[in-house]
C-alpha cells in the first residue's frame, strides 16, 4: 500500500530520509520511510487520518504545523531585524 502524505510531511520525511539513508544501506527506501513515519508519529509530529476518498493518509500534526509556523515567523523577524 502506498504511503500517502501531505506536502508538509512529505518534505520533512524526505529531508530525514536524505540524512539517514547512508546509515541504513540494508533498508529499502520504503522501509526507511516507514521507520521515519513511525518515529514522527510516536513523537506527535505525524498523524494518520482518512482523506476525502476514505483512504488512510499521513499528515503533519497540528502541533507540528504550529511549530513550523512559529519557526517561520521567528526567521522572518530575524530577517527584518537584519535589514
Amino acid at each position, binding site marked *: *500500500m502506498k504511503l500517502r502524505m501531505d506536502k508538509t510531511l512529505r518534505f520533512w520525511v524526505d529531508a530525514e530520509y536524505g540524512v539517514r539513508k547512508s546509515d541504513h544501506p540494508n533498508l529499502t527506501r520504503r522501509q526507511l520511510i516507514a521507520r521515519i*513515519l513511525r518515529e514522527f508519529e*510516536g513523537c506527535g509530529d505525524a*498523524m494518520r*487520518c*482518512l482523506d476525502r476518498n*476514505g483512504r*488512510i493518509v499521513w499528515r503533519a500534526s497540528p*502541533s507540528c504545523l504550529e511549530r513550523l509556523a512559529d519557526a517561520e515567523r521567528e526567521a522572518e523577524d530575524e530577517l527584518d531585524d537584519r535589514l
Partner: protein
Amino acid sequence: MINYSEIPSHFWLVSSRLKKPVQDEVPYTTQALRQDLQRVQIAWEECQETRERDAIYTYLTAVFGLVAWWVADNCAVERAQKALRLHNLRPSEHKEPFAAIIRCTADPAKVDKRTRSKWSRVLRYALQYKDHSEPLDQFIKRKGGINRGAERFSERTGRRRRMNTWF
C-alpha cells in the same frame, strides 16, 4: 429482512463501507496511540474554553477522525480497549470505540453516560452514512443535529429508548 436489533453495536464499526480491511505497514505504537489521545484531549480542552455554540463539533470531529481511521485499519475495537487500559479504565464497561475514546478524553464530570451514549450514536451514524468528503459538523446539522442524529442511529438499529426524555 435484516433484524437490526440482533446485530451487536460493534457491527457498525467492523462493517463500515470500507469492506476490505486496509492494513497500513507502519506499526501503530503505544506512543502513537498516546499522541492521538492527547490530540483529542486538547480538542476537548479547546472546546471547553470557548462559549461558541458549535464548539463541541471540534471535539466530536477529533474523536470521529481518530476512530474512523482505526476502523479503516480494521483495529478500532482493540485500539479503543488499549486506550482504556492506558487510562486505567476497564475495557469491559466501554465496548464501543467512540464511547471509549470519549471516556478517555472528555471530563467525565461534564460528560455523563447518557451524553457519551448520545455522542457515540451520532458518530456511529456518521460513520455509516456520511460521505468522507463532507465535514462532520455539516453532516450532523444536515441530519437535524446531534440529538436527532443519535435518534436516527437508534432507529436504524432498532434500539428505541423507552423514554424520550433521555435526550
